[in-house]
């Protein structure tokens, strides 16, 4: 069951997401140059963080079941 630790990890992830996805951290990457393979910083940053968040959730849920 999803008790205690997994729940805490998810809440941590939520808080991390709130901070990473908003001002002022967001403004650090809010520029069109330099780009990464042509893609602006902002886009790379947002999608990277997003992917990591979803991956983190999947890891907590699916990995947590085994341990």
């Amino acid at each position, binding site marked *: 069951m999803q008790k205690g630790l997994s729940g805490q990890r998810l809440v941590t992830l939520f808080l991390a997401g709130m901070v990473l996805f*908003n001002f002022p951290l967001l403004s650090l990457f809010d520029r069109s140059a330099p780009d990464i393979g042509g893609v602006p910083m902002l*886009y790379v940053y947002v999608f990277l963080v997003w992917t990591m968040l979803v991956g983190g959730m999947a890891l907590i849920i699916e990995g947590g079941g085994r341990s």
Partner: protein
Amino acid sequence: MLSGLSIVLASLAYLGLLFAIAHFGDRRADQGRSIIDNAYVYGLSLAVYCTAWTYFGSVGRAASSGISFLPVYLGPTLGMALAWLILLKMVRISKAYRITSIADFIASRYGKSHVLGGLVSVIALIGTVPYIALQLKAVSSGIDLLVPADDALAHVANGGGWFDTTLLIALALAAFTILFGTRHLDAAERHEGMVAAIAFESLVKLGGFLAIGIYVTYFLYDGVGDIFRRAAEDPALRRLFTLAHGNGAYGNWFTLTVLSMFSVFLLPRQFQVAVVENVNEHHIRRAIWVFPAYLLLINLFVVPIALGGLMHFGVGGVDPDTFVLTLPLSHDHQALALLVFIGGLSAATGMVIVETIAVSTMVCNDLVMPLVLRIGGLGLARERDLTGLLLTIRRGAILLILLLGYVYYQVAGEAYALVGIGLISFAAVAQFAPALLGAMYWRGGTHLGALWGLSAGFLVWGYTLLLPSFAKSGWLDASLLTEGPWGIGWLRPEHLFGMTGLDNLSHALFWSLFANCGAFLAGSAFRPPNAVEAGQATMFVDVARRTAGVGTSFWRGTGQVRDLVTLVGRFLGPQRAEDAFLRYARLRGWNNLDEMEADPSVVQFAEIQLAGAIGSASARAMVASTVKEEVIGIDEVMEILDEASQVRAYSHQLEEKSRALEAATAELRAANERMKELDRLKDDFMSSVSHELRTPLTSIRAFSEMLCEDPKIDLEDRKRFLGIIVSETVRLTRLVNQVLDMAKIESGHVEWQNAEVDLREVVTQAVDSVSQMLKDRGQEVRVQFPEIVPLLWADRDRLVQVVLNLLSNGSKFAPKEAGVLEVRMTADGERVRVDVKDNGPGIAAAEQGLIFEKFRQGGDIRDKPQGTGLGLPISRQIVEHFGGRLWVTSEVGAGATFSFELPVGWRDDATAGDNQT
């Protein structure tokens, strides 16, 4: 080119496929082999969140302001991280109390109030109808694009008559929703076939959008990097690469994040799929990542498509909302365009179906039924089966909502009021947040608070968001926004009290939630919760500890079970009601319904059954009309709550008690062992005493009998035998005395005659009394005293007894004629010690402990000492009574030394208890 007919046919074929899937899902559900009992299906059904507004509108927003649309999907991603806290609790509460809509949720929590349920339903309806219109519009404009202008069907599709394709689709959706949404009245109000179709639709729309995304990115351009590099050359497009190009972009971003975070739980359709249709609460776990992953995937190509479209058609050339269709069409890829259109159709229909079911449930249970029951109460009372009426109301509501949506679409057209409705709708349902979260986590919220809060929030929302959207649509004077109503500047809807610096959405959300929360708190503080509110509050907040099994009912009624079955039967159908009650009766241990007593929990069961069908507030009213309700006060509710918590505490205690019982059993067993041991010791003691008594008696009897019977025994023997008889009698007397003495000391019945004692006098007295006996045996005694001996507080005669015992003991073991007893006294400030040393054979180490046991005698076997075996144990008891100790040191062959020492400071008040028994 695609013909209009083929598009209509394709659309209808797709809808037919949905019907088939839904039908299959329902059939499997009836067979008990659910196809939606799967975490991935549950996760996909949550993706009903992505509507046509996502499918077409995201590209449009990206084309005008970059990724500022993204928080609409980031919010739910973050919200899902908290799903295990929030969603799980919502699901548990709803399952436990048969809650079937968000209106019912709030109404049930705040005192099962009709008014509150009605208000929530109205807010949901107002927020939903334009949203449904938006979906219809998306479908309609999609068809417009696909069908060539010269097609025979074109003028029909363009809405050139009373009948058009959009209406056809709206009616088809109504049919679908009625068919799979109101197939039967279920107490749990779940629609498996519908959910299966929705999950399938989620796959279709994702597939369609990914297809167009990949087509634009990799076929029209050379990948994402290529699109961005080319776009970067255009300053107008480069502007979209960053966020901070408008005022308050970050504020708007934050507002959107929070708003959509709420929406993922609060939108009626989300509540429907996430809470009401949840089959198994464990599905929530996997959905926590499946749904956000879905959102991530569907958003991957939004910006590339937008940039691609802008570069292809030029800025301002074609409506960016239509890029997903116009891009393939302009490259003559009709099949792809049709696929993408089907994807968009699925996004629109999915939303419409679920939203309509959700809102129609609210309208039926929280708006229509209360009115029907109130107005037509008497007429309905005669009606035996109301299931037909209920289903008719539901179906009517569904049709009405869809038609309202269609009418709104026709009226609003391209107006801002329709285009911007997505976020306006979000902001409307955000008004549920304080009451809903308060319902689950705060006991203090009351009906009045929720009513005030919702009303205030709804009014401010209408004034700051809905009204401006009407003004922007040209339906109201635009001066309302610029000048304020009647020219009052500080009442300008988008700058309330002159507030600036916030975008209109953030502005509206701030003021509406400010008013909402403020009124909620103020209303809750206005008066204390009444009985029903307090009861429901505890049942919601403590749902995890208080699920159905506990069966706490906060009102008491008495009535006939038959009446209740009939009542429930009127709404669920007699057979279903009968079955449900019978199952419940068996659970409770009754064989049939007639045996069952209508206690409060049966009444509550009836209420919960009804709640699923007609909402908790109506259910309560109906049950109350059937059974006689006893007025129940807040004190009594608290008592029931206490009882319930006591039951919990009691079961907890029981567990602890059973553990304690085990421990006690173990203790008892141990105690029993000790008792047995003591018993054995007592038996041994009795047996020893018996033995010691019988032995002298044996001699006495034997000699007496012989003397008595045999007159021929010569004088010498007679004398000898009589002497033995006398000595054995003495021994017997001594033994009896000592056994009694021992028993007295052990039971604490001795009366100690304590006084100041000089131990030298004690020893002197004892030595004097044995001196003659020693002399007779030819033994010598030597006494040695220190100069100063502190006085002791003790019983003089008892101490004499001790010393006497040690002396006679020593005398027994010391050799006759050559025996020497040495008595040596030493003293320091704390204790006085006496050693009695003999020159006998000594005592082996193994025996040194034994000699202090009762009836144990040491010494040479042949020359058995004439003792009782009680002298040393008694002496030791006496010495220990005065706080001292008695012991022996000896080596075999070197005599034995018996020593005792007594502390100087001993006072009997410290052991006063010993004397009083």
